[in-house]
């Protein structure tokens, strides 16, 4: 017997407990069930706390990232992001304590300490992040104590990251663990002070494909300097200057809102949400930043920049819009911030959003998303492949934006696909990114391949 979810009988086989996490805009008024643990056996697309912590911290370029656990956790996340560095490439080394059975039985603390010593001796890094994993949490290794001793022994920051995977399947919890580690790192030691500047911090920016550098170029043209990004192309020394910033921009809200709130509490730095995905979002964000500085010269330069760039972007978007108008899109990504940005961009390209969802969205995120899409759009929290497939077919989708796990499902159904995940190699932010995104959406939605695949001349009908 073959299982085929496109058969009506099969859609009935979807799981009851998941129905509350699926809603159709305009139809049911009830709130979507979200931000809960994943259902066992539902084949969630989510990862774990460790993954969340790792993706947030990993772009700190000159730090050593040491995964304390059996080998898998490290090997799966080696060089996991397409983050670029202007200097050190240390962050692209994958360090693991490679725990074996005897360590699990007798405790992994001695091995962790030995690994830290080896790393310091070989590389003298300014900081080491030590990530705990499931097994370490289970056997009760006191990584806080081991890190503290090592910090004392070597005179560098050795920061524990409490990221045992079983704590949650929701990466948001891992973002928090990473946030705590970052706050610990940037907090001035006794007697130290950080000088206040007019520069800003750029939180939730990971320099994928050089995106931080591109935004930095815009800001510099406006007359504003970036102090440090959390964490794209950052160094330990630059991060330690974070308390001196004038303003904190928050892009990836899922990972960094909490950090921004705490930076405000501890250092009095205000923060604002920005979004550099899409030309419209980029222009809005630049204006918002300029307004905050309240400087006429900055405002003038900002407007000049936006006008110049928009006149370059507009005809390109228009060209692709002609081809894409009326095409039906699905979006399933990790965080709500990204979903919101993609919805706006696809709408600018004339596309209709018929299916969307996230792995980690919160109630207020889903309210925002519902307000942006037209009636009848299916919204799913923590979707699984069966649900994605069902709605891709039901909604007759032409193009899907998502991560690697969804890519081949779309391809199998003859549907275009745009990768919007953290291991992508090309920047999608800013005005240049908007052009690249539009081109990619067109290339996949309108690929000649799909037509060719539709029929097989040798198949008896």
């Amino acid at each position, binding site marked *: 017997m073959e299982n085929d979810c496109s058969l009506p009988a099969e859609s009935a086989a979807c799981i009851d407990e998941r129905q509350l996490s699926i809603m159709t805009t305009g139809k049911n008024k009830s709130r979507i069930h979200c931000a809960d643990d994943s259902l066992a056996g539902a084949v969630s697309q989510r990862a774990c706390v460790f993954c969340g912590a790792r993706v947030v911290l990993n772009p700190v370029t000159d730090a050593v990232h040491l995964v304390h656990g059996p080998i898998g956790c490290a090997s*799966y996340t080696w060089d996991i992001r397409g983050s670029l560095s202007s200097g050190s490439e240390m962050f692209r080394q994958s360090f693991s304590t490679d725990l074996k059975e005897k360590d699990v039985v007798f405790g992994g603390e001695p091995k962790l300490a030995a690994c830290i010593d080896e790393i310091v001796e070989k590389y003298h890094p300014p900081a080491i992040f030590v990530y705990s994993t*499931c097994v370490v949490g289970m056997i009760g290794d006191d990584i806080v104590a081991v890190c503290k001793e090592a910090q004392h022994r070597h005179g560098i920051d050795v920061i524990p990251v409490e990221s045992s995977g079983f704590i949650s*399947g929701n990466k948001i919890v891992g973002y928090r663990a990473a946030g705590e580690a970052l706050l610990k790192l940037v907090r001035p030691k006794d007697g130290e002070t950080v000088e206040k500047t007019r520069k800003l911090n750029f939180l939730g920016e990971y320099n994928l494909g050089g995106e931080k550098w591109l935004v930095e170029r815009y800001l510099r043209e406006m007359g504003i300097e970036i102090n440090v990004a959390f964490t794209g192309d950052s160094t330990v020394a630059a991060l330690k200057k974070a308390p001196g910033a004038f303003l904190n921009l928050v892009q990836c809200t899922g990972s960094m809102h909490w950090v921004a709130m705490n930076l405000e509490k501890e250092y009095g730095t205000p923060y604002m949400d920005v979004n550099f995905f899409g030309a419209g979002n980029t222009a809005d964000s630049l204006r918002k930043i300029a307004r905050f500085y309240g400087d006429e010269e900055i405002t003038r330069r900002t407007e000049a920049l936006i006008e110049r760039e928009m006149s370059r972007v507009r005809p390109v978007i228009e060209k692709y819009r002609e081809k894409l108008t009326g095409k039906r899109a699905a979006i399933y990504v990790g965080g709500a911030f990204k979903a919101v940005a993609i919805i706006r961009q696809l709408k600018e390209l004339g596309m209709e959003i018929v299916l969307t969802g996230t792995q980690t969205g919160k109630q207020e995120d889903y309210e925002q998303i519902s307000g942006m899409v037209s009636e009848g759009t299916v919204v799913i929290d923590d979707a699984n492949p069966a649900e994605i497939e069902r709605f891709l077919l039901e909604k007759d989708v032409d193009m899907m934006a998502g991560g690697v796990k969804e890519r081949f499902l779309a391809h199998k159904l003859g549907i275009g696909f745009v990768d919007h995940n953290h291991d992508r190699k090309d920047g999608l932010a800013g005005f240049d990114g908007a052009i690249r995104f539009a081109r990619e959406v067109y290339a996949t939605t309108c690929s000649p391949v799909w037509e060719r695949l539709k029929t097989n001349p040798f198949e008896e009908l």
Partner: protein
Amino acid sequence: MAEFTGTPRVRQVNENQCHMCMPLGGVVALRGVEHSIALVHGSQGCSTYMRLANVEHFNEPMDIASSSLNEKQTIFGGEENLRKALDNVIRVYRPKVIGIMTSCLAETMGDDVERFVETYKKDREMGEVDIIPVSTPSYNGTHTEGFWATTRAVLAYYTQPSERHEGINVIVPNISPADIREIKRILDLTGLEYTLLPDYSLTLDRPYGGRYQKIAPGGTSTDAIARMGGARATIQFGLTCPEQFSPGRFLEQRFGVPLINLPLPIGLESTDLFIRTLKEISGHPVAESLMLERGWLCDAMADAHKINAGARPVIYGEPELAYAFAKICMENGATPAVIASGTQNSGLAGLLEPLMNEAVEEMVLLEEADFVTIEEAAVRGRANIAVGHSGGKYLTERQGIPGVRMGYPIHDRIGGQRILSVGYTGSLAFLDHFANTLLEAKYGSYRRLRKEELLNEEGVSDAKA
């Protein structure tokens, strides 16, 4: 005089991993059983990572269920979650076979999965779904051991004392779907009846069909597996397979099926050995078409022998493949600078000893290696071509050593599922790829290199002699 160095790992820290975790291999092997799905008993992240690694390698959707353990279960045990996971998986996927791979977490918690399954089956009065638990804690082995352990567990679950029959068993290690198809094609040419396990040649390389089948058709049928105990012989491509996980050894010990352990048929000598074995078992002459293919391979070996003689490969990956590629390289005059595996006690030392006696250059063997160690040894040994999976990317990116992607996992090239390197045809495909990679590097650099070597800054032949 050749020198053969086996270097034990002295460092505690593993820097840039050359191996993956144990359940990952289990998940791949299980895809070779008809109507099956894998369920990883552990945190949600484990199954998601395994899906990612496989999706990128096979370029196929890959559904792996998880019992999604969280904090509460670490205290009270994971039985409830596992039961719920089984319920949901059966409901949505309707599998006939569920393989449960344990994660490090579940093993550390001490969950008695076998007992959980027994109780579950009794409570649910399940007749039609087979549930096979496999113990795969990563602190005890790599994805290689996970692959073998799962294949063996599947055999142990299904095989029964059955009547002797004329068929043979063929057991393959973690090779590509294209390799499995090639081995089957060769077997078909002999006229022998056979059961190949695990056969994921169709399940992990689906022809386009405009739809997604949740459980892809294909795989070894459980009926066929049940009869493997009555076969004439087992051919297992598993010279490096640990005894305790060896599927072929299991069949021999339990049912008296003679085990013929062969190297993977990569290269002339190893393919000849496979073909000769089939000829002896079947009593039939070798198919003419195969002899043509053999002739083409020999012709290519003659034509490329001097190009290949300039190679100093660094070969890394799962032991079975590392050995096979070392062998084909050496029979073509390319002496490996480094042969490495992330696996502990890979068995490579004993296997490689006779090869080393032929070598005129130093060969370094690294077991339980990480890529920092491999990279250092490759540079020291002046390696000029890398053969292995994507983990070796820094050999190219940082050391400028061009790479030939082979093995598993491959995530920085497309088509990992289609890489063909077994049989005469596959060996020829590999050799051409290998030689052309050397040629591309040579043509791209020889003018500049000779200039730098022989002329001074003014472009005049340097007088220093």
